[in-house]
């Protein structure tokens, strides 16, 4: 049985997730797969205080999720949120089985990152992780909001293949705007 949605988003649970996807999917549980939140009761409390009415926020680290996902209740009503690609990769390494496509929903610009899509900025390390995940056959799609443009695994591979080296200030090729920060 697959999860309702598995999403990589560096804001974790926020308006686009709670209202954009939430209005479509009607989740009962938001599961934050994040070590920072798992180690910080105040931070988790802040997410719980702001959670949409009728939903519950749970949290565990990515590695713990990889070990324990099979025993989680109500997976079909759960949206799983990862802060980044490294957290997703960690969970997959630990045994997490998505059971469906994984949504790349939002990674903001950071030092050294390139704009792959307007809502997706990747450093060289993050591009490497994404390429590895695609090469291993994981089903990924980039889409910010329901109804927005969807970029499947093949298209993502093409976009990544069009990127030039990120180390020498060269700009991205096909797919993204290639703005470097």
């Amino acid at each position, binding site marked *: 049985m697959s999860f309702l949605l598995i999403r990589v988003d560096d*804001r974790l649970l926020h308006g686009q997730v709670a209202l954009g996807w939430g209005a479509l999917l009607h989740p009962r549980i938001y599961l934050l797969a994040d070590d920072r939140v798992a180690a910080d009761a*105040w*931070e988790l409390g802040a997410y719980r205080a702001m959670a949409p009415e009728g939903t519950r926020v749970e949290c565990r680290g990515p590695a713990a999720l990889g070990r324990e996902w099979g025993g989680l209740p109500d997976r079909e009503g759960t949206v799983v949120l990862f802060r980044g690609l490294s957290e997703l990769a960690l969970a997959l390494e630990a045994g997490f089985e998505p059971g469906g496509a994984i949504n790349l929903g939002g990674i903001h*610009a950071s030092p050294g990152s390139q704009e792959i899509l307007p809502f997706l900025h990747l450093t060289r390390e993050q591009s490497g992780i994404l390429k590895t995940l695609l090469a291993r056959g994981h089903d990924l799609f980039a889409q910010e909001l329901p109804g927005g443009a969807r970029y499947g695994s093949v298209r993502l591979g093409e976009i990544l293949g069009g990127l030039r080296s990120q180390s020498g200030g060269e700009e991205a090729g096909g797919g993204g705007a290639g703005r470097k920060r």
Partner: protein
Amino acid sequence: MSTPGRVRAVLVTHGALGAELLKTAEMILGPLEGCSFISNSGKSLDELTAELGGELCADEPQVLFVDLIGGSCGHVCASVQRRFPRVLLATGVNLPMLLEFLHHRGRVPLQELKQRLLERGCDGIRCFGWDEERDG
């Protein structure tokens, strides 16, 4: 119950909403002091948290106005309350709520101010006109 002195306002919102709410409030009340805004546009959680932290003062009473409960703005504001205990967080900001705050800040005790924000933020919301049962 003591009446707080100067109470600052920081509007933390999506897009340009906070800037426009403050601009509109100034059109109605005149120039405002002790008010600022932060937009979440294009910012990661860490960037938004850092910007908000730089805007707040540990020893001043402040009200954070947030547009959307459940959004990144609300989360960041709830999160920084750990470092800034004299911060009140008000979600669902609208123009009546903001005007009520600007009229009464520093004049009434905090508990009364909170109640006023809640009431004023809600009681300006009405629906008029078309009634399906009456008008078809």
